């Protein structure tokens, strides 16, 4: 059952990822992206990362994608598909780069079957932790002890991002 669901989510994710790249308008691209993010959230649930699945839907598919949608609507884009695609030498080069990248990644998976043996033990450990601490507690525990300094720095990063976005997008007063 889990396997079948995984392959359904994976197929939807790959199909809509291709949709993101090939969609004619930015809005279509963005809606495909939302589908990709939602099916990735499904994959996270199957991998027993329940909190991250919820955060993926709320933060990514909710907040960030709506921000993109606001900007696309604000700028009124998407009337020049032909000029939007790279042509000539750049297209050939990007095919070569992507092919090389895919080949390199595919070589990594020739010996990857060994991971699945370790996976069963890892899944049992995560199951035990989930029962003991709950879906949020299992992330919150390391987040607020071992990684508390990076967590606080993340807060500063968000503040800087807010100020930076305001300064950049503000209309110049003259």
């Amino acid at each position, binding site marked *: 059952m889990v396997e079948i669901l995984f392959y359904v989510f994976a197929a939807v994710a790959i199909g809509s990822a291709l949709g993101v790249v090939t969609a004619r308008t930015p809005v279509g691209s963005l809606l495909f992206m939302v589908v990709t993010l939602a099916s990735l959230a499904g*994959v996270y649930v199957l991998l027993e990362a329940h909190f991250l699945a919820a955060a*993926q839907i709320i933060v990514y598919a909710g907040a960030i994608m709506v921000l*993109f949608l606001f900007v696309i609507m604000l700028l009124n884009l998407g009337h020049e598909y032909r000029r939007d695609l790279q042509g000539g030498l750049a297209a050939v080069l990007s095919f070569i780069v992507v092919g090389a990248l*895919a080949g390199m990644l595919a070589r990594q998976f020739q010996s990857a079957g060994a991971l699945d043996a370790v996976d069963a033990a890892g899944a049992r450990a995560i199951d035990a932790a989930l029962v003991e601490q709950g879906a949020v507690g299992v992330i919150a525990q390391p987040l607020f002890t071992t990684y508390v300094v990076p967590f606080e720095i993340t807060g500063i990063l*968000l503040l800087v*991002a807010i100020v930076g976005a305001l300064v950049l997008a503000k209309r110049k007063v003259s």
Partner: protein
Amino acid sequence: MITPAMVLSAILFVVGTFGVLVRRNAIIMFLCIELQLNAVNLAFVALSRIWGIEGQVFVFFVMTVAAAEAAVGLAIIISIFRHYETVNVDNFNLLKW
């Protein structure tokens, strides 16, 4: 189920890279970069089953950084659009050579 998840992550990363290279609309390139970030997140989540829950904590950080990056990047795109009236990256070649 780690190997299929890693394969899915690799495929999504390659598709995202292809999108960044082949499109010229700055916002769609940006969306494809988000796609790459999500592929990396999926790899983190899959490998957290072997190497412990820290992988999921890192995904949390990646999501925060992606939110900050989206805010700043879209602000840059808006201010570029005010200047050039387009978001086609071919027109932004002042720092290219």
